[in-house]
């Protein structure tokens, strides 16, 4: 086992050659970060033209564009350390190699965006808000990551995340504090999201090693910070925050996924697979 010096910083991808174990764990973390943002921005982009009003259509697509940009930056970090081309990593990997949380791959609702979409806006708001807050907690920790290229990316992403979080928090509070159908549907969406939210908060089997190498803080600390950030919001909307979050449909960090992800990959990579050598 490699010894770990807590003050060790890796400033360039080339230095990773001397630290094979560190590199292996870093790659795992980068795939989790990249795949989470990638699949959720894809699900978000399926809402284009279907959001409740035109202002939301503009806002949501802008957020999805930012988020896809964040995924691209993480895939670029993987490319920089020789794992493969960023575009290939995004498009060509089968679901069994993906590390995103299962919650983020779930379809937006019944139907298809081309015909009879019966998407659930309550689910969209809750999933995006809870995820964005988890991402904020992660990014704040990554700003101090021992892998400096990742710490720099985190600083950059954090500035854009500020607006995303503000956006989703506003929707969450307003809809949950409304009466009648809105509140009922939000409560249902919250219960549904919590069933799989453990999958978003986990760092997977290599989580302890990530902490040891100073890449990110522990799953436990990150979870506590998420709960801490959500407490006042849950008090404001008069809902209870559970103490445990489920992983009902499996742990995506271990490559466990649902058919929703296979279908999404088939769709999003359709054009790319027609001619993988094309220059865009």
């Amino acid at each position: 086992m490699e010894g770990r010096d807590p003050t060790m910083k890796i400033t360039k991808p080339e230095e990773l050659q001397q630290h094979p174990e560190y590199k292996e764990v870093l790659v795992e973390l980068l795939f989790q970060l990249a795949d989470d943002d990638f699949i959720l921005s894809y699900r978000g982009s399926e809402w284009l033209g279907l959001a409740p009003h035109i202002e939301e259509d503009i806002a949501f697509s802008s957020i999805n564009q930012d988020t896809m940009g964040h995924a691209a930056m993480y895939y670029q970090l993987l490319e920089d350390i020789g794992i493969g081309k960023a575009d290939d990593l995004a498009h060509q990997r089968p679901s069994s190699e993906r590390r995103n949380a299962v919650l983020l791959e779930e379809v937006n609702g019944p139907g298809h965006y081309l015909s009879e979409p019966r998407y659930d806006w309550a689910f969209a708001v809750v999933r995006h808000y809870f995820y964005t807050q988890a991402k904020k907690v992660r990014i704040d920790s990554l700003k101090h990551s021992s892998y400096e290229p990742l710490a720099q990316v985190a600083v950059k992403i954090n500035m854009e995340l500020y607006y995303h979080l503000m956006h989703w928090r506003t929707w969450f509070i307003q809809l949950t504090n409304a009466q009648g159908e809105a509140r009922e549907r939000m409560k249902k969406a919250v219960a549904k999201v919590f069933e799989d939210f453990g999958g978003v908060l986990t760092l997977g089997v290599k989580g302890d090693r990530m902490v040891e190498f100073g890449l990110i803080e522990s799953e436990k600390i990150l979870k506590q910070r998420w709960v801490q950030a959500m407490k006042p919001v849950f008090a404001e909307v008069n809902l209870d925050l559970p103490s445990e979050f489920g992983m009902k449909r499996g742990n995506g960090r271990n490559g466990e996924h649902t058919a929703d992800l296979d279908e999404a990959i088939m769709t999003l990579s359709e054009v790319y697979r027609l001619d993988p050598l094309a220059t865009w």
Partner: protein
Amino acid sequence: MDSNLAIEKIIETLDAVKDPEIDSVSVIDLGMVEDVQVQHGEVTVKLLPTFIGCPALDIIRQRVEQTLLRLEGIERVTVEFIRHPPWTSDRITEKGREKLKEFGIAPPPRQIDSNGEWHVECPYCHSSFTVIENLFGPTACRSIFYCKQCKNPFEVMKPISTWM
């Protein structure tokens, strides 16, 4: 060519490379140029990306290359997008802020109140009687406002800062 002179000339030339989505401001006005190096006819330009997912970045890269290659004595141009330091909206120059207004976009507010509110002047009539319509606008970097004085909708460049 003396390399100091060359750098001066290159920066002057870069001021002609405009943002493809806001053609009154250049990459210099936006504060995107972090470093320029010249050696034996080879130029390396380090640029800071504004918003990460901005589709204009590749176009900007191409335009910088094409424009500098037209300079005498320049044989190769390399454009690198670097992540550190991060681009922030206070890097936009005074000239850049004026040029944004000419285009009908209010420059990014320099301060945000503790309650999150921005004070923005209408780029058309300069009234401060303005309200936010949508934090998100037609591109990643802009928000939509409305002027209650001259009754025009207008766009504002979003403030982006490391304290966020």
